[in-house]
């Protein structure tokens, strides 16, 4: 497989998710929303999957979500993650539309503190990987009570 030099960092210039990553660089969580039916279009596509509308605008979200499910990764499935293990990765359902799930990392807690559907909030952190140049600011989540 040919991979970008910055893999597993995202390609922040890739058009379909460019706004997601440029918003994250400003510590904002933004997702595309349909101007016709107000549904979020996630993952990004040319058109709204609910109504077929073509007018999608990137809208800022509150950053509040619930923990849909998670995994404690202890095995280095990708060698670049070896020094980050164990890590908690999973899906959060955003409050504005719980059908929209964001893959993310759950941080600032231990796995024992986690429960399905618990409230979580976004925190922005730099993703870095050993042997990979650069960093990318990314929306991670932590339990809401952890502040």
């Amino acid at each position, binding site marked *: 497989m040919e991979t970008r030099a910055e*893999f597993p960092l995202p390609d922040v210039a890739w058009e379909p*998710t460019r706004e997601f990553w440029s918003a994250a660089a400003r510590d904002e969580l933004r997702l595309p929303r349909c101007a016709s039916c107000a549904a979020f279009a996630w*993952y990004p596509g040319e058109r709204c999957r609910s109504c077929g509308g073509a007018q999608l605008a990137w809208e800022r979200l509150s950053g509040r979500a619930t923990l849909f499910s998670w995994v*404690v990764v*202890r095995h280095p499935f*990708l060698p670049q993650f070896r020094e980050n293990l164990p*890590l908690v990765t999973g*899906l959060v359902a955003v409050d504005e539309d719980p059908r929209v799930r964001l893959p993310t990392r759950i941080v600032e807690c231990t796995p024992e503190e986690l429960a399905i559907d618990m409230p979580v909030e976004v925190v922005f952190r730099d993703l870095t990987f050993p042997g990979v140049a650069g960093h990318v600011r990314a929306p991670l989540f932590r339990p809401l009570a952890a502040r």
Partner: protein
Amino acid sequence: MRERSELGFATPYENVSGEVAIVGVGEADHTRASGRTSREIAVQAIRRALDDAGLEAKDVDGFMYTPYGAGLDAQAFREEFSIEHDLWVSTQGGGMVWAASGPYEAAQALRAGKARTIVNVFSVAWATQRGQMVGGPGESHAEDLFKQNLEIPFGWFPQPVYFATIARRHMHEYGTTEAQLGAIAVACRRHANATPAAVMREKKLSLEDYLASPKIADPFRKEDCCLISDGGGAYVMTTVERARDLAKPVVEVAGVGLGSSDTGVHWAQQADFTATPQKYAAPVAFEMAGLDRSDVDVLACYDPFTIVSLMQIEDMGFCPKGEGGRFVEGSALHFDGGVLPYNTHGGMLSHAYVLGIAHVVEVVRQLRGEAAAQVPDARVGIYGGYTGPQAATLILARKD
């Protein structure tokens, strides 16, 4: 919220019950990294399937494979078997969901007179390739740019992580336990221990062993995850009428159904997160076959992870949705006395990671009475194929 019925659909299928028979089955050697190519593995599987049917390569005028990781395409098949006559070729074959839906495509070709004897083949050399960091089951996922840019940076990758996420949600919604997932792994290992061709034929696994095993992607242990192995399989199809003149007992395609999710190809966004499209596929197949769940003697499902077995058993209707955990406990899935003998060769967890083609081989052998872990007098068997956004049910029945 959208209605559940809007989350997926069954492909409209014509009734092909009783038209197609599987007359030959063959497996290549299933091994850890072997240095073999997937092409030579496919050739070995086809030779064995033709020998099993009592047919020769010159009899074959239809060839089905998948372009995804193909070990042997139609041109290579011609070269390897010195075939110069016309060949009906379909790329809607191979393993996974297509090992189940392939016979429907074959039925259409047989009806139209495009072919009389059709081979479907699938092979992989992923154990060998893994050492070279090319190929393998993770690669096609890592090439998906949405995964590269929205999932992988957060460590939500690869398949064991997707399905451990599903498993934890299933546990929350239905009370499914780790020990219940373990019962599936133990049943499959027990069957592999009785199957000489299985990669894990010599390695025992008790429920205590399972529970003591460390978690690699909590809630998953490595025993929840399929093997990586080199191997392959093939089966030969013709009309039921012609099958009566061949050596083996006739095993016919009694029913087939194909279901699809309407919420994309990414697991993260599946609206029906703890279900599979078998819930759309299985009713079509059972109706076509004129059979019910209680008629099924042996079930084999594409099983990359324990939870995928559990969900398909539920979604095919062998128990109410959410009760799969209690259903699979104890010896329920065992070949000798279980209520639903399941993956009686060991499945992808313990037999071989050949993406379902060996499951079809095993079901045919069960219905002929030739299996290693034989279910007494098995007459109706099912292969459930799965890819994620699609699933298919293939109901086979012995006719005599």
